C-alpha cells in the first residue's frame, strides 16, 4: 500500500545534517543513548556538588 504521507510542498528543511531528525532512526537511537547518559551524569554531578556545599547560597538567581 503506498504511503499516504507525501509532502505537498518542497521538502521541509529536515536535512540529513539536521540535528532534529537525524540520518536514520538508528542514528537517533545512538544519539539518544548518549544524551540519556549525559543527562544522568550531569544531574548526579550537580546533586553531589550541591550536597557537598560547593554551590554557595545566593549564587543562583
Amino acid at each position, binding site marked *: 500500500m503506498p504511503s499516504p504521507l507525501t509532502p*505537498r510542498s518542497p521538502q521541509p528543511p529536515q536535512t540529513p545534517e539536521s540535528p532534529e531528525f537525524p540520518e536514520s532512526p538508528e542514528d537517533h537511537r545512538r544519539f539518544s543513548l548518549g544524551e*540519556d547518559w549525559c*543527562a544522568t551524569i550531569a544531574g548526579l554531578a*550537580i546533586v553531589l556538588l550541591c*550536597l557537598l556545599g560547593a554551590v554557595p547560597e545566593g549564587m543562583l538567581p
Partner: protein
Amino acid sequence: MSATGARTGVRPPVRPVRSAPLSSDPRTGQSVPDPDEAPAARLPRASSGWTLLGIVVVLAPAAGVQVLVRAVPAAAEATAFAGVARSIEFPIYAILLGFAGNGVLSLLGWRQRMAAAFRTELFIKTGLVLLGASINAAIVLRAIGPALVQAVLLIAMVFSFTWWFAGRLGVDDRLRALLASALSICGVSAAVAAAGAVQARKEQLAFTATLVIVFAVPSIFLLPWLADLMGLSPAVTGAWIGGNIDTTAAVTAAGTVAGEEALQIAAIVKTTQNALLGVVAVLLTMYFAFRAAPGAAPSPPTSRRAVLRTVRERFPKFVLGFLAASVLVTILRETMPSGVLDPRLDAIKSLQTWAFTLAFVCIGLEFKVSAAREAGWRPVLVFAAATAVNLLGGLLLAALLFSGFAF
C-alpha cells in the same frame, strides 16, 4: 479520486518519495544517504558559532523568566489581574518567550542554524534527575506499583485503539506503528524506537514527531486547568498528566503548573511508562518481521540475550539518576542535620528550576506546525481520536489507582 488532490483523504498519484526506506550498505553497514536529494536543498551544517549563539538564545529567555516570575506579580499587585498574575507559573513564561524567540528567528531565517543548541530532552532529563533529590524514596516505592499497573493498561488500551482506528482509515502500517507508539508510550522517543523496529520512512518519523509536539504543548495548560476544574487530588492529577501527555518535557511542564506533589507523581508515572519502551520495541519488531512485512523489517531478536539487549538499550538511563538522587537524599535526611542539608537541597531545587526553564524555552523555540499540514487529515484525525481515548482512559485509571494516595 480528487483531480486536485484536495484534502479528501484520497491521494493523487505521487511522485517517488525522495527518501526511500533507510537501508544500510551491505558492505559497511552504514546508512545510505538519499541519492535523490539535491545538494542545493541541503542547509549548511550548523557551525559551532551558530550553536554558541543558539545557547545564548536559550539562556537569555531563561534568565528573563526569573525576572518575570517576580516582576509581573509585583506589578499587578494592586490591580484586578493580581490573582491571575500570581497563578502564572514559570513554564508558561518560558514557553511563551520560546515562542517569541521562535517567531523572530524564523523570520530572520536563523532558527535552523541554531537548532543544535535547542536541547529540550537533555535539559529536561537533567532536571528530572535533580527532581529525584526532592522526592522521598518512600513515595517512589509506594507510587511505582500503581504507576506500573496504569502504564501497562494505558499503553495496551491506547496502542490498540490507535492501531485499530488508523487501520480503519487506511493509514500505512508503518505510520500506524509510529502513531500508536508515540501516543501510548513517550512521544518522540517511542516513535524513533518504533521507526527503527519497523523500518519507517524518515518523513513518517518527522511527521509523527511534529504531531506529538503540536498536541503536547496545549496539554501543558489544558490538563492542569481541567484537573483543577474537576477538583482532582494532586496524586490523581499527577497520574493523569503523567499517563496522558506524550513528551516527558511537557509532562514536567504541566506537573509544575499543577503543583509540587502533582509534579512528583507525574514524574514517577511518566518515567515508569518510558521504561516500558524497550518491551514495546521488541514486540513491534517481532510483529513486523513475522506478520506485517516479512523480510522488510530488521531481523527480530529471537534469542533471550538479544531481547534483553534491546530492552536494555531502550531503557531511559536518566531514570537511574532519578532513583539514585532520591535514595541518596532520603538517606542523608536520616543522617545529616536539617540545618545543613536544607540549604543544599534548596540549591538543587534552584538548579532544577533552571534546567526545566531551559527545557521549556527550547519547547517554544522548536515548535513547528508546518510539517503537520503537509500530511493530510487522516493521521491527524487518528492522533486526535486516540488522544481523547487516552484522556478518558487515563483519567479513569488515575482515579482508580491514585485516589487514596497520601504524601
